[in-house]
């Protein structure tokens, strides 16, 4: 029973095709952008980078500023999406409250939808990442002076070109989950405030 509504939300969100595609693409772009910044940071400095001179410190600072603004933009995006989701669903939520859904059930429904969209975004960029890495790998094999190549050299080299590595995506996913928290809180607050009476009095 606990997960029933959660999984129903997935099916229902798939049927709101336009909103689903827009949200998924937007989250995919956000995830990719964060993953890209993380990648660049790691390539430049490595995970435990400590600046050794003022030039490196300035460079690191600029990366952190870009990341900071990206997280701010992601937070705003999360809030806007949550607001739109709550707004678009308020008549449905009023009806569901009328037929006996508690606030807890409603929370499961909207959280289920947000989590599904996030997972869809991750899956879509993972598939994109595999395609891109496959393309790079194939290109490197073809362009290699030795057509068969040495896998111990080619594979790490190919992986180095991959834009969307699993570790970068994981970090990006954690960042996106973090920036969604304010939006989710607003969404829950908005849905809990919807009165079931709305179902009886809503305008035509």
């Amino acid at each position, binding site marked *: *029973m606990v997960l029933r509504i959660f999984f129903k939300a997935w099916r229902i969100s798939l049927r709101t095709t336009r909103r689903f595609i827009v949200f998924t693409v937007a989250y995919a772009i956000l995830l990719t952008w964060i993953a890209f910044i993380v990648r660049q940071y790691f390539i430049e400095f490595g995970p435990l980078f400590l600046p050794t001179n003022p030039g490196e410190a300035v460079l690191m600072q600029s990366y952190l500023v870009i990341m900071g603004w990206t997280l701010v933009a992601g937070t705003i995006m999360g809030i806007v999406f949550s607001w739109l989701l709550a707004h678009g669903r308020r008549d449905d939520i009023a*009806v*569901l409250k009328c037929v*006996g859904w508690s606030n807890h059930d409603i929370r499961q429904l909207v959280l289920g939808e947000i989590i599904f969209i996030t997972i869809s975004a991750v899956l879509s960029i993972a598939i994109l990442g595999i395609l891109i890495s496959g393309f790079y790998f194939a290109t490197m094999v073809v362009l290699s002076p030795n057509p068969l190549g040495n896998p111990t050299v080619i594979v790490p080299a190919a992986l180095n070109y991959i834009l969307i590595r699993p570790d970068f995506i994981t970090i990006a996913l954690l960042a996106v989950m973090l920036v969604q928290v304010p939006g989710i809180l607003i969404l829950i607050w908005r849905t809990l405030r919807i009165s079931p*009476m709305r179902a*009886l009095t809503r305008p035509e």
Partner: protein
Amino acid sequence: MPEDIIVAQKVQKEYRRGREIIHALRDISLTIRSGEFLVIEGKSGCGKTTLLNVLSGLDRPTDGRIIFDQMDLTVIDERILPKIRQEKIGFIFQLFNLISTMTVYENVAAPLWPTDLSRQDIEDKAMDVIRAVDMVERKDHIPRQLSGGEQQRTAIARALVNKPKVVFADEPTGDLDTKTGATIMQLLRKLNQQEKITFVVVTHDQELIKYADRHFTMSDGRLSGGRR
């Protein structure tokens, strides 16, 4: 002798609109017996929907008491109300209020999703009422693929799926043509007689009075009548 399922005692409801106080319900006392088909008729803005809200526990009166199935809705913990709605109450709306992203089957089954019932039990119960309103052929359709009458039949099935004690219907024929409206009212009456479910119908349409066991007239927040 049927038991009293709803007892309203000296119910008042006031709204504040700016400095003005609107008396939506004035001193309403009413007893509804189990299995009754009650029609409350009145013009638009007379307080019918407010009365429905209050009788069903969606809203609280400013003064007075509502006893629903031996529970005082005016003092009950708000957190218990969804459970009461889930187990004892069904709603039918003028604009059907089906969820556009759900199929007929899902709309009907949705009230049961938060319960502890198994998937098979939910399916059985939903299909029973879908069959009762003759919508089996359309169970996989979404609301925009249905006519107004079919949408209302789906809404009726949703209202009945939890085997409620009382179904509240707000202008159930208000968005339907005369012929479809009559069919829907006959269906409600049939379900009332077969399943012994109490129906409380509010409407502006005097034609619906003929389906009632008792009917009341509402005017300016006051209730009169109660004739059989």
